[in-house]
């Protein structure tokens, strides 16, 4: 295990994402500037300047040319990955939370928070091939869930959209008609707000993490509950290994209570679980704050943890799996 500490962000990290090749790591933080790093040595490559608020999430196109970011400044921006120039700005009436490119990168799903009486919404935008032709029109706007939608991702073949958020319900929507197709029921579903959602590499199943101290694995087509991973603390971030049958859960208590407790009380360790047997197989100690973002390198050999610290640095741990 060889951890690399990556310093650069001045405020807590919010989201991490590798590109498809696994050579670049994109990080979002509350300090307005999404940053790109070399995945193998942790060197900073550059930042994307232009947002005026906390950046909540990002996504990278398949060919690593376009980056989309959603920010609390009520915009989502499309960037040129190489030059760092903003190509287009989608304006909303409330903070943008989650962004996700569809298969083929011609569509993107963007969620907006409830704000000043406006309900939360899921917007589907068309992404033009040539940024000159880009428009801000929404193909479809989905409304309905109560509270914040923390994550919305595309289903197989862009036919559906999976959303999860504060109302602790997972929903599958038809991305053509906007119809609500499926909802997780009370018995199987999470009992507290869902904080994170992560798709498997082939897009066939996904993992959700919730403040109810559990993570659940679902089939993306039928929304059938496959596995439940029980932990001892609220789950803030989840990730699945693309290589082995492992899942990683990160979490900890509320950031507001961090300074008042012993670091062990907060249970800030990242836990590895066997995906099939749902048994804990290991943990990474040494964090002093809750983990609020996690990502697996597509090569399956390293994991990034974003840890909330007083100075809010990010830690990167290149982690060679045990057993």
């Amino acid at each position, binding site marked *: 295990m060889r951890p690399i500490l990556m310093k650069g962000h001045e405020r807590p990290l919010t989201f991490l994402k590798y590109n*498809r090749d696994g050579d670049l790591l994109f990080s979002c933080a509350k300090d307005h500037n999404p940053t790109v790093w070399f995945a193998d040595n942790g060197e900073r490559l550059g930042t994307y300047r232009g947002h005026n608020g906390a950046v909540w999430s990002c996504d990278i196109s*398949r060919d690593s040319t376009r980056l989309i970011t959603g920010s609390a400044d009520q915009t989502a921006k499309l960037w040129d990955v190489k030059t760092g120039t903003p190509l287009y700005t989608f304006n909303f009436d409330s903070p943008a939370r989650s962004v996700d490119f*569809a*298969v*083929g990168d*011609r569509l993107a799903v963007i969620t907006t928070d409830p704000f000043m009486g406006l309900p939360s919404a899921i917007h589907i935008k068309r992404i033009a091939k040539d940024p000159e032709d880009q428009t801000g029109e929404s193909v479809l706007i989905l409304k309905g869930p109560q509270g914040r939608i923390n994550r919305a991702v595309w289903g*197989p*073949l*862009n036919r559906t959209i999976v959303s999860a958020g504060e109302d602790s319900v997972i929903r599958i929507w038809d991305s053509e008609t906007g119809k609500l197709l499926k909802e997780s029921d009370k018995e199987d579903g999470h009992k507290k707000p869902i904080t994170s959602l992560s798709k498997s*590499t*082939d*897009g*066939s*199943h996904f993992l959700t993490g919730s403040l109810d101290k559990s993570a659940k694995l679902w*089939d993306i*087509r039928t929304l059938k509950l*496959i596995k439940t991973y029980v932990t*001892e*603390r609220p789950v803030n971030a989840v990730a699945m290994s*693309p*290589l*082995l*049958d492992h899942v990683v859960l990160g979490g900890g*208590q509320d950031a507001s*209570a961090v300074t008042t*407790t*012993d670091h*062990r*009380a*907060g*249970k800030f360790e990242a836990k590895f679980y066997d*995906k*099939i*047997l749902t048994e804990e197989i290991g943990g990474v100690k040494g964090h002093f704050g809750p983990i609020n973002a996690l990502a697996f390198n*597509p*090569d*399956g050999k390293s994991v990034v943890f974003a840890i909330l610290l007083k100075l809010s640095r990010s830690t990167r741990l290149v982690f060679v799996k045990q057993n």
Partner: protein
Amino acid sequence: MADVMSMEDIHATAARLNVDLSSLDLGSIRLPPAEDFGIVSDDEDLKEEESLEFEEGFANIIVVDNLPVVPKEKFEKLEGVIRKIYSQIGVIKEDGLWMPVDTETQKTLGYCFIEYNTPQEAELAKEKTNGYKLDRSHIFAVNMFDDIEKFMKVPEEWAPPETKPYTPGENLQKWLTDEKARDQFVIRAGTDTEVLWNDARQSKPELVYKRSYWTESFVQWSPLGTYLATVHRQGAAVWGGATTFNRLMRYAHPQVKLIDFSPGERFLVTYSSHEPSNPRDTHRVVINIFDVRTGKVMRDFKGSADEFATGGTGGVRIFVLSNGLKLFYFQMGGGKDDKYFARIGKNVISVYETETFTLIDKKSIKVENVVDFSWSPTDPILALFVPELGGGNQPARVSLVQIPSKEELRQKNLFSVSDCKMYWQSNGDYLAVKVDRYTKTKKSTYTGFELFRIKERDIPIEVLELENKNDRLLHLLGAKSGTSTGRVSKLTTLKGKQANALYWSPSGRFIILAGLKGFNGQLEFYNVDELETMAQAEHFMATDVEWDPTGRYVVTAVTSVHEMENGFNVWSFNGKLLYRIPRDHFFQFLWRPRPPSFLSPEKEEEIAKNLKKYSKKYEAEDQDVSLLLSEQDREKRRMLKEEWDRWVSEWKRLHEEEKLERQKLRDGEASDDEEEYEAKEVEIEELLDVSEEVISFD
């Protein structure tokens, strides 16, 4: 006038009455109070809500009978007298005293009604003044107003009581006959209360009974484990049964705070203290003693907190379930008889016997300034503690009193004592008195033990002094472990250990040195016979340690005093973690106690001698279980794996089906290999070192 008039109507009316509207200042009009002219006020709802609070029934009214019958002239005087008597007890409501008068003779009828603010006050007034002698011919008869209705319903003619057919009860001790010799425990977490078997072999607990909202405050086992008592706002209830938990009996005691069983489980004591309606008054204390099986109240004690508190410490002790307040029972013989109980009062110890529930010899034992007492667990002996008085002129004293003869068996004077605690050894052989003494400067204290040997002639006393009250220095005393060592000797001193609590195993051979709460839950399992540490472990933030009644297992728990990590861990006696159960809002963990063994000491010795023979059977069983478990585990893993493989193949198939469409979505980009990572084993040969050597050729 209730109808709203239009402006025209008003003008018309004004013209008819020759009133010049312009000269009127409408703001100057004041409506007579309490007249709404049919206009409903918005505040009406509020009033209704308030009036609801006053509908309390008649529980706060008492009827005072046997008053003198007086003519009209003396009415005021009599009323004044009654008011004086009854306002001492509580606050009489405004117009709360009503003395009816005969309309013809204008004389009073010899009774009156008094309404208090609260039913508690009314109860107290009834309690205190029933039988009050105003003069020789007028002895008050005080009743609750509610009771009159009850007495009216008594039928005139006596009807023979129905005899119910006898229904045999369940075997309440069935749990002791568990085939696997497991122990039960009860836990409270969130709204649920659960009774579980500790199945250490399976490394998990097995549910016996679960119920939401079983209790409103806490649960408690009876000392022999027969009953589980639950505490509610209206009283307490006991539960038990052969296989499940049925309610066996209820004991009414409103707002009960604490309960306790007598050691032989014959009686249940309930305690409550009530806020006085007058803040200057002390709290009112109610103690009831019930017969557990019949549910009948055997004796009750009521009074102000002062009467139950002891000497100098005042009312504070009420809230601590301390000896002063708790009624102590003790058992005799095989623990079947709970013959006496004692109560501490001001300068007095009252000892009652349970045949008649009256004082022994109709007299309490007078002991000046007694603050603490404790029953021997086996014999009718009371240990009393009287603190130092008069600035050290009168020494503190510990004495042993025999009941029922009230004879003082032994007495010991102690000097410069700051505090003193009495601990009985479980067989009643020793009484250890822990004495905190002042040093000469009176600035700090040091600790010593006085050991009374009850079973020996004249009860010799042995004094042990500890050099230092440093919590890093632990002294292990053989006698405290419950084994009957002939002489007390210091076994060892463990230095440099960090611990703030010690827990002896019930079997006495093992001790856990625990650093609870602030010490992060460090645990050390220590074998006293061998004087060696068996294991060291940690249960982070642990707040409680509980040995099971057999001393085989021990539980450490984090209760809801901490926000995080609530739950409990089960360990074997030698410090092996068996299983962990996390539970949110974890409140309580209690092992079900076991009654003492019926085996004679000879028989026990024989079993100990031939332990191999007996243990063989269990060892075989253990092996079977562990084999079965690993078999089950394998099976489970295989099933899970198969299930997962089914999912994966299904996903693969669908993925394959969608391949073409996906390519179309990606503008015909053929590569679809982004998901196709495969685990490959790669062998890499590395040349570490090359060296040439000339080998001689023979």
